[in-house]
């Protein structure tokens, strides 16, 4: 190791000696002369060799899959290699490279002469034109229209002038509620204190209007508006599973374990924590949602299975201007 060090030192001296052939007077130099720091040079060389070693380690780890923590080792070897280069550069910059403190003036803030000439060039260039305003107007018309024409094809990305699709849901009277495997829900299977996710039978369940949350409440907890009489047969209620605030799925169901001190049951969106009251028709109890959770009237058919008793009580999903103009449609 010592011998290697001496050898490297000798090599660096040799290089320095080579540079001495073109010696300047110190006054002539642009870059001021630095002090030699042979020890620092050795350290820098050492760091660079370590960097090379780590990089080689990276390649080895990459090439052989027998390392149990291959991912971590890849990160460590590559990271260390970069870190050694960084250390070499920073140390080299501090000790081997001359650090100069120089002064200079800030650039002239403005160039009055050139400014004036630019203005003059522009102004003189339109000297031969007599109908300036007319030409400018025609030019603006051409440019503006061409701009609109250039942007028009971008409208192919979607229906830009028709919000009808936003009102659509697959729910209509008689459609069966099925679970994620397509099995119909039977009313007797719906238990208290839990919630179920239901989809419309035979429709795309990936659309915003499809998923429902279904819960069963004791009769005391149900206080639906008068026009929703009969929407909750046997205390079973269905609501859109998509929050009316920002469109996340209502993935939490808060059921009181000790009703005397706790707030009533609530369907809660985990994105911004709007709780909706399933007993009162999806009223917002707190949080940022500005609109009730749309409710789907339910029926229990002769086979004891749940079916939609009509369409949604309102538009499904996050609100948009006009969201209240129509009810949910099928």
């Amino acid at each position, binding site marked *: 190791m010592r011998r290697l060090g001496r050898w490297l030192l000798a090599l660096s001296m040799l290089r320095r000696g080579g540079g001495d052939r073109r010696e300047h007077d110190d006054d002539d130099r642009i870059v001021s002369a630095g002090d030699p720091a042979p020890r620092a040079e050795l350290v820098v060389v050492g760091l660079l060799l370590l960097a090379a070693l780590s990089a080689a380690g990276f390649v080895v780890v990459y090439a052989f899959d027998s390392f149990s923590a291959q991912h971590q080792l890849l990160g460590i070897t590559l990271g260390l290699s970069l870190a050694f280069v960084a250390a070499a550069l920073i140390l*080299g910059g501090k000790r081997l490279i001359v650090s100069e403190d120089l002064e200079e003036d800030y650039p002239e803030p403005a160039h009055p002469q050139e400014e004036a000439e630019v203005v003059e060039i522009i102004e003189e260039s339109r000297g031969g034109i007599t109908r300036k305003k007319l030409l400018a107007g025609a030019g603006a018309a051409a440019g503006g229209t061409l701009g609109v024409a250039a942007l028009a094809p971008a409208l192919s*990305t979607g229906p830009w002038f028709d919000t009808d699709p936003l009102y659509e849901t697959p729910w209509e009277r008689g459609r069966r509620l099925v679970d994620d495997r397509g099995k119909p829900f039977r009313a007797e299977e719906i238990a208290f204190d839990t919630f179920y996710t239901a989809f419309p039978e035979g429709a795309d369940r990936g659309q915003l209007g499809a998923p429902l949350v279904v819960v069963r409440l004791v009769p005391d907890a149900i206080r639906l508006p008068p026009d929703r009489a009969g929407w909750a047969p046997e205390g079973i209620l269905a609501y859109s599973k998509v929050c009316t605030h920002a469109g996340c799925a209502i993935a939490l169901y808060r059921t009181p374990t000790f009703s005397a001190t706790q707030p009533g049951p609530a369907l809660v969106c985990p994105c911004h924590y709007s709780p909706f009251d399933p007993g009162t028709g999806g009223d917002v109890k707190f949080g940022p949602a500005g609109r009730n959770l749309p409710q789907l009237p339910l029926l229990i058919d002769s086979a004891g299975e749940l079916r939609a008793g009509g369409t949604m009580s309102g538009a499904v999903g996050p609100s948009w201007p006009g969201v209240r103009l129509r009810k949910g449609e099928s």
Partner: protein
Amino acid sequence: MIRQAVHFLDERTGAAPFLRKGLRYLFPDHWSFLLGEVALYSFIVLVATGVYLTLFFEPSLAETHYSGSYEPLQGLAMSEAYKSVIDISFDVKSGLLMRQTHHWAANLFVAAIVVHLMRVFFTGAFRKPRELTWVVGLLMLFTTLLEGYLGYSIIDDLLSGMGLAIGYGVAESLPVIGGYLSLGIWGAPFPGDPAFESRMYIFHVLILPVAIGTMIAIHLGLVASRHHTQFKRAGGKSKLLGSPAFPAQVPRSLGLMFATAALLFLLGGLVQINPIWEWGPYELYLGTNGAQPDWYLGWLIGGLRLVPGFDVTIGEYTLVPNPFWGGALFPLIVLVVLLVWPWAERRVTGERGFSNALDRPRDRPGRTAFGAAFFTWVVLIFFAGSADRIYVFLDLDYVPQLWVYRAAVIILPLVVYFVARRVCLELQRAERIEHDSEEAEAEARAEVATA
């Protein structure tokens, strides 16, 4: 050899005068001037790792079934996009390293920009003649936020789907145009046209990176053309003092570049980030509790959560749906306030001249107090976004917490304004007293000497 190379280049490009000047461009020495460089180097790591990821990522929502080496997801239906990122994480050698490093780099990129922005704000580096540098930097920051959002949205895991739903909700909430705009961009009601994935992808890997790269070039060009600012020097000298780009700055700056890359790759290798295999593929009807976006979008989650629940309606017409306030207006206010600040401040102070010398924050109590109050406001809203986590970890009830935040975002900034102002003035006063006593001492000593 060097002589020949320079001669060759100069004869063919005429670059010698430019090089001569550029090599000796002066950088003032101060650690806080390196923050912007950290952002720049994070961007380089982002581009390098990002290009690698595109070699394996498939921007497609077509359904497929998982069959890779991660057992828990075996046979599960998922999109090609999500599957390809799982494959990058488990079956592409060094893929996970690149992916995690990419994600860490995104976080560091935005963090460095934000801290850099605060340095520039509190030292007044944005003043004439550098207003354009400030404006370009701000636009870059907001482009970066969108870029990061798209980055984790194209993966199609559960969290990215929830994030997109919120983005869709915010787009829909824009007054008058919301419904049209969201349908236009998404192509269909959420989750939208399958081609929406390709739209996000091309923006994430081409359009926005090119935009950011262009803005970086303009930003740096503007910095160089007006030269760096520097802190005031003793003796009131107005000359720029610093060390030249070459040789002094090059190894330092390259060292910082390698150090940044080293940190990011070590993080990428050793610290897990966004383990998408744990979230599972996105389905519209699924949500998870405790979902948090990357930190740099946390302020928007906080904004969305803090606003009380109301839509502004006129009869049956919904004028302003709720997410508009926290998700659109709030960031817009932040952007506009910062954009117009250089001109607003000039109006108040009446300073029209050139300002190459930086202020110490204490010497500008008004600006410092406003900045402290403004950042307090944003940071409080940011923390409001984690109230649910506080509920889980510290068992503080969510609803009272939110009321505290609703009050705090109004009261605390005012308090901070007056406290910060006071602190600045006190610091100034203490300095004056010290200065006076030193002068008196010197006088006394002089008198003793003459006597």
